[in-house]
């Protein structure tokens, strides 16, 4: 019994150390993806960085409670989605502030294109397409936008999106279908 008591602190310390290492590897693996999703959702670099920090801070605090029922990425994405929702709600309450004060506009966001071997004309066309999708995404409801971004930017499976958003798979499908239909219509009109 005495041996157990003597060993216990060391075991706990080792477990903590292992958990810390695990968490560090989780941060290294998923940070960029979480940031990207938040950036696409908010179009605000500073806000996306802050929310990413908050997301990992929250995840670190609750890391011991993470039982691996879903993947770490889905779990982190769920935290990020909730933080983004909270932030949006808080900003809407602070009605005297401009809600998208630091968000870049659609044209500025469309300037970012991978440096590939494209002609100037192709680059311009691609930029135009990206701007149109941004405009279309802007018109989507919060849920539709989240589901659309998770599916077509993060390339998550429907099951993963359902886990991350807390919606049923059927509801995810429905939101996705509507979002896609909207984007298609908007692209077709151009």
């Amino acid at each position, binding site marked *: 019994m005495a041996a157990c008591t003597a060993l216990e602190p060391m075991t706990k310390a080792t477990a903590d150390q292992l958990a810390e290492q695990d968490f560090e590897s989780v941060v290294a693996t998923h940070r960029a993806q979480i940031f990207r999703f938040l*950036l696409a959702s908010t179009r605000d670099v500073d806000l996306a960085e802050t929310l990413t920090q908050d997301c990992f801070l929250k995840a670190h605090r609750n890391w011991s409670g993470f039982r691996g029922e879903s993947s770490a990425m889905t779990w982190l994405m769920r935290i990020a989605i909730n933080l983004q929702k909270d932030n949006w709600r808080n900003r809407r309450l602070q009605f005297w502030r401009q809600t998208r004060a630091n968000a870049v506009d659609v044209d500025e966001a469309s300037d970012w*294109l*991978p440096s590939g071997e494209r002609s100037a004309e192709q680059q311009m066309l691609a930029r135009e397409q990206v701007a149109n999708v941004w405009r279309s995404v802007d018109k989507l409801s919060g849920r539709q936008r989240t589901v659309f971004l998770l599916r077509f930017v993060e390339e998550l499976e429907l099951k993963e999106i359902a886990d991350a958003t807390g919606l049923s798979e059927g509801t995810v499908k429905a939101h996705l279908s509507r979002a896609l239909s909207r984007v298609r219509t908007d692209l077709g009109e151009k």
Partner: protein
Amino acid sequence: MERNDEMLVRGSQVPEPDELDLKTREAIGNFKASVHAWSDAMVSRPRKEPQQAARKTWRLTPGWVLGCFVFVGAVGGGLYQNHHQQELARIAAVREAEQQRQIAAERARQEEDLLAKVDSDISREVPSAMEPLAALMTDEESK
């Protein structure tokens, strides 16, 4: 809510990204590539923001300090002025009351003197009321 969800689900078909029509697929593909490029650029950029923010804070600090001084000065000056005026008014009231009291005391003293003078002027020596009777009694007793 459940009913809405059911209504939403009914008839919704979601094509895989590869199954989209060419135009949509191309647009969404470019959109995805653009978001990735933007995000990658932002992740790998040198982080100057905290320094800039700190510098901005330092730039703002003297303004705030000066503003606070001016505000405190204005409010403090106003309060001091108000207090000073109240104090002056109080002193003036005390002086006024003291003056009134002195005047009243002087008047009372003068009236008293006057009454005393009148008393002394008009008062005469009168015989004692019992003196004649006393004289009579003495005569009868001698008889």
